[in-house]
């Protein structure tokens, strides 16, 4: 269920957190589903158990999952509610932006470069 991308530059625990959140958003994980045990995740991915523990701790802090002693870790909240409409609005905004960029003469690669640069600048302001 999980995968770790060595080359993405994103720390492994964060990749796990993102994958759980994504699964919740899309509906692959629903409230009450059990997450893999630390040992199962470790056996499957060959990652440090602390990585899994850290990811689960963060998700638990966000209220998305909870551990039941002796039984395992389970999903307590989903991210799928109400976001479809928000996403639809965002998607339409994106479509308009793509149209504008195309009219301005940007090709596919330039669009991606512009997107990436802006994203990195935003992130760098947060990090610095």
């Amino acid at each position: 269920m999980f995968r770790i991308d060595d080359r993405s530059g994103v720390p492994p625990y964060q990749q796990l957190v993102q994958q759980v959140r994504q699964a919740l958003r899309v509906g692959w994980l629903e409230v009450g589903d059990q997450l893999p045990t630390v040992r199962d995740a470790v056996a499957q991915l060959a990652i440090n158990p602390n990585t899994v523990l850290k990811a689960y701790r963060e998700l638990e802090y966000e209220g998305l999952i909870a551990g039941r002693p002796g039984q395992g870790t389970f999903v307590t909240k989903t991210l799928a509610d109400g976001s479809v409409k928000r996403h639809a609005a965002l998607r339409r905004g994106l479509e308009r932006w793509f149209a504008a960029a195309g009219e301005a003469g940007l090709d596919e690669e330039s669009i991606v470069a512009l997107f990436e640069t802006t994203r990195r600048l935003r992130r760098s302001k947060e990090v610095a």
Partner: protein
Amino acid sequence: MSIALETTGLGRRYGSTWALRDCSLVIPQGRVAALVGPNGAGKTTLLQLAVGVSRPSVGRVEVFGWSPHEQPLLVLARVGFVAQDHPLYRGFTVAEMLRMGRKLNPRWDDTVALERLDRLSIPLGQRVGKLSGGQQAQVALVLALAKRPELLLLDEPVAALDPLARREFLQSLMDAVAEGGLTVLLSSHILADLERVCDHLVILSASRVHLAGDIDAITAHHRLVTGPRDTAARIAARHNVVQARHSDRQSTLLVATEQAISDPAWLVEVPSLEEIVLAYLGQPTSTSTQPTRRLEVAS
């Protein structure tokens, strides 16, 4: 925080060449620590000093507070060691290797060994020399783990293995870590596996430690900054530059810093672990101008 391995000014000399020098580091208990560096950097020497196969020329090494040289049996009972190329007695069967372990180690747990070998589908009656490279590495790991060690030292355990065998070996290792009570120090010159497996890092190059600390702390203290070439000197003056790369108009610097970088002309990013390691390994071999970095654990 308990300490599994501590070295103070540790050095080892062969004739007039120092294989390891000025090595002072602390590996806390419970960590999975990576020892990275190019071939000949001193990784094997450090591991051999930790287990007592080699004697210090200068300085001290302590494992759980004991000296491997002065209290060898106390240390060896708690330390598992897999040497480079995982030496095994080729003519022995797997069962005979277990018998050796049982006879020479008071803390030997046969059920651990048998259960692991069974899970890996390695037949007990097979001669060790006839096993594949990956299976031999697994047998060497099982032998070390069946001693119930508290510290496991591995010298390039996956260097000679194909990708699948490498993955399987690390799975076995991580499973043992998940059981609890184990500190691991493994050396490698392959960076790819390290970030997913390790939470502590020691960078060794030209017989010296260049960086040591928890990976979280290291990542939090390093930044990759990109900006105009003409202001690079200003950044370098205020922050510790590990590596600098310049093109005509642009400079990219890897800095180790605790202060925020506020210059808006500069793009600041979190470097990947691989970028940090390569930057430190790319430093000139005479590091007299650059003091060794020692980032303590931020727990």
